[in-house]
């Protein structure tokens, strides 16, 4: 057999395949499918509220112990009518903003350094482990001693609360860089700076954002507990006073304010996460 014709390459056999990871279903999805999460979620919340209202209306217990959702809603509206609430929100907001902001900056920097330089990690690991396994809230009395009862002790406790989850997750992100990608980059003679910026950092983004999300939870705990213990203003202080003066609906209104803030911040971070993950096929 002689070697003759040059067969023109026909790569179509491999190219015509549908994308490997796209979501598929055997039946055509109904248009309702798209709204399913929202509809079912809303329904279950409405049902839960209705059940709560029914229990409250039965008045087995007084409004002091079990206020209904309607009572809480009224208290919530009243909070905003007086205007004092803005001082509390402003105080707590500033505490969170400063404390969490500092934690993001410091946590990111330390986490990246610890992930990238092994020896730096060896040096700081004992401290990170110590503080991460200690509830930082127990340090509040010390902070009050140091800083008084203004915003500073709360900022300190928020900062310490959010700092460690951010450090640990950022470090994990750097450490989890795929070895194959590093090998490719080194093979093409990439500098350390380029490897860091183009391979390690983008690969760590999902981990970093997870750290930010966990940090939000710790920051909110920090602000509330900090203000419960000692404060002049703040939403945590409002909750504390309302609780101690038997204004249960008002107290729950404060709780809802905190919870709402947490959900809002978490959702915002989740949005950012989704933006960075557009390349990842949906797994569900």
């Amino acid at each position, binding site marked *: *057999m002689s070697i003759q014709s040059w067969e023109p390459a026909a790569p179509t056999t491999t*190219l015509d395949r549908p994308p490997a990871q796209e979501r598929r279903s055997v039946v055509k999805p109904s248009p309702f499918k798209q709204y399913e999460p929202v509809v079912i979620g809303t329904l279950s919340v409405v049902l839960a509220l209705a059940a709560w209202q029914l229990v409250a209306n039965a008045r087995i217990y007084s409004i002091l112990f079990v206020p209904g959702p309607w009572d809480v809603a009224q208290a919530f509206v009243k909070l905003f009518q007086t205007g004092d609430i803005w001082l509390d929100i402003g105080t707590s907001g500033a505490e969170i903003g400063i404390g969490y902001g500092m934690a993001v900056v410091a946590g990111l920097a330390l986490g990246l350094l610890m992930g990238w330089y092994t020896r730096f990690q060896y040096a700081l690991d004992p401290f990170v482990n110590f503080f991460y396994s200690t509830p930082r809230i127990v340090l509040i009395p010390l902070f009050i001693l140091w800083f008084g009862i203004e915003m500073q002790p709360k900022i300190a406790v928020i900062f310490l609360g959010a700092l460690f989850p951010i450090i640990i997750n950022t470090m994990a992100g750097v450490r989890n860089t795929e070895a194959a990608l590093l090998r490719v980059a080194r*093979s*093409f003679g990439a500098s350390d700076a380029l490897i860091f910026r183009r391979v390690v950092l983008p*690969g760590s983004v999902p981990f970093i954002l997870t750290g930010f999300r966990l940090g939000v939870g710790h920051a909110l705990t920090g602000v509330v507990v900090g203000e419960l213990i000692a404060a002049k203003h703040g939403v945590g202080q409002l909750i504390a006073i309302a609780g101690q003066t038997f204004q249960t609906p008002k107290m729950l209104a404060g709780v809802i304010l905190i919870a709402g803030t947490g959900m809002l911040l978490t959702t915002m971070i989740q949005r950012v996460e989704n933006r960075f993950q557009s390349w990842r096929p949906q797994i569900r």
Partner: protein
Amino acid sequence: MYDRSAKLAAKGVVIEYWLQRSRSLFTAVKGVDLEVRPGELLAIVGPSGCGKTTFLNAVDGLIPIAGGSLTLDGREIRSPGRDRAMVFQQPGLLPWRTVLGNVIFGVEAQGTMSKSEAVARARQQIELVGLKGFEDAYPLELSGGMQQRVNLARALLTDPEMLLLDEPFAALDAQTREMMQLELLKIWSQTRKTALFITHDIKEAIYLADRVIVFTRRPGRVKNVVDIKLSRPRDLRVKRDPQFLTYEDEIWESIQEELAVPAERLIAGVPAA
């Protein structure tokens, strides 16, 4: 035996590394002598674990050699360089970058080309490897064969003196592998780049290469060299050519001698049908 005009020359190359857990020195290859001529496609085959990939990594400059010499165009290889580009067994694509972004990653890492020039050339390269229309797709949306095309395009865009291929088709299914071999030959014939191709697939080595080098079992060294005198261009039918089969027999026999368990004993162990 050494040709002054050799592109790549390996003389008595020894590669060792420390095994951390057992705290012992491991000799992967010991005394590799070979040369790759300019414009030649040389394939190395050998039993698995014979150190052929380790040798290729040393040629790429990713790992140091413990003895002997390794030169490209007469210059000692010490680190990765712009004169070489590797096509990896695992595609190693940045999952957050599109096909286009991944293809330019090699020249971006080398810092040799402006971004606009890289993008313009990458588009041509993508067309050359048959991925036109997939410029904006993400790696996870591609089949294994398509990912390897990106891997190849990334290496070609750096326009290296020498192309290093580390079992690039090993993870593909049989049909895709054959198509990729055909296409690699087509692309290679357009550029005639000096290439070193590592594989464990004897047929693949014969089909692609000008010469096939057989490695011994570990620690690897050159056992024999087979000149493949099949005329080019080659289509896939060459694989059924009697001459092709002769080469295959010769190489297979050579490798068989290197396997830890001789094939006769393997056959003897099978109960008679």
